[in-house]
């Protein structure tokens, strides 16, 4: 069964450093998303991406964040200068023509 994959599973970084989180969505999907989940809290929408551009972003998704689909399979989230409060689980999701979004296993980001 096709699934969304994410790398790395864990990432530890120093405050102010750049990180890139990678996702491989399900191959025939066209809609891509990033969500995050701070420990013990609910999952929050960050950004949606379709047709090679951002279709919506939340208030969390400020200028420090960017997304890219560099090739036909990867979808990345970049945080340019990490802050302590960026520590969270980051989930990628993808959706085809049906309505259901399927989530990856997540990347646990810890900013020190």
């Amino acid at each position: 069964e096709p699934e969304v994959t994410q790398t790395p599973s864990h990432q530890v970084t120093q405050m102010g450093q750049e990180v890139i989180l990678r996702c491989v969505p399900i191959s025939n999907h066209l809609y891509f998303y990033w969500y995050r989940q701070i420990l013990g809290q609910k999952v929050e929408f960050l950004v949606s991406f379709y047709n090679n551009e951002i279709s919506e972003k939340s208030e969390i998704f400020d200028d420090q964040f960017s997304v890219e689909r560099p090739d036909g399979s990867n979808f990345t989230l970049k945080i340019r200068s990490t802050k302590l409060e960026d520590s969270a689980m980051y989930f990628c999701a993808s959706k085809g023509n049906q309505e259901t979004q399927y989530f990856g296993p997540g990347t646990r980001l810890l900013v020190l």
Partner: protein
Amino acid sequence: GESVGLHLPTLSVQEGDNSIINCAYSNSASDYFIWYKQESGKGPQFIIDIRSNMDKRQGQRVTVLLNKTVKHLSLQIAATQPGDSAVYFCAEEMRGATNKLIFGTGTLLAVQP
């Protein structure tokens, strides 16, 4: 404002019993709802969904009920098993160009053997 919330943060049941997890939503314009299961350290896993033109949908051991009058959603799990122990989230899909999901706060289901 828009919000999706859960009535019970923790639900403890005995193995073999039926579980009912509840969720309230506030956006009457939402027309698609999903239940996800999240095990520790993993991503949300799709369980079952329902459109607003339905009031009940059944899967394998799970049933979702939708009451649009009171904007209430529930997940029923029959014959709960230890493997059902997880956090359960309801999510509301916002119709539009992006179809982003708005998640509730989650209910921890603890199945006692």
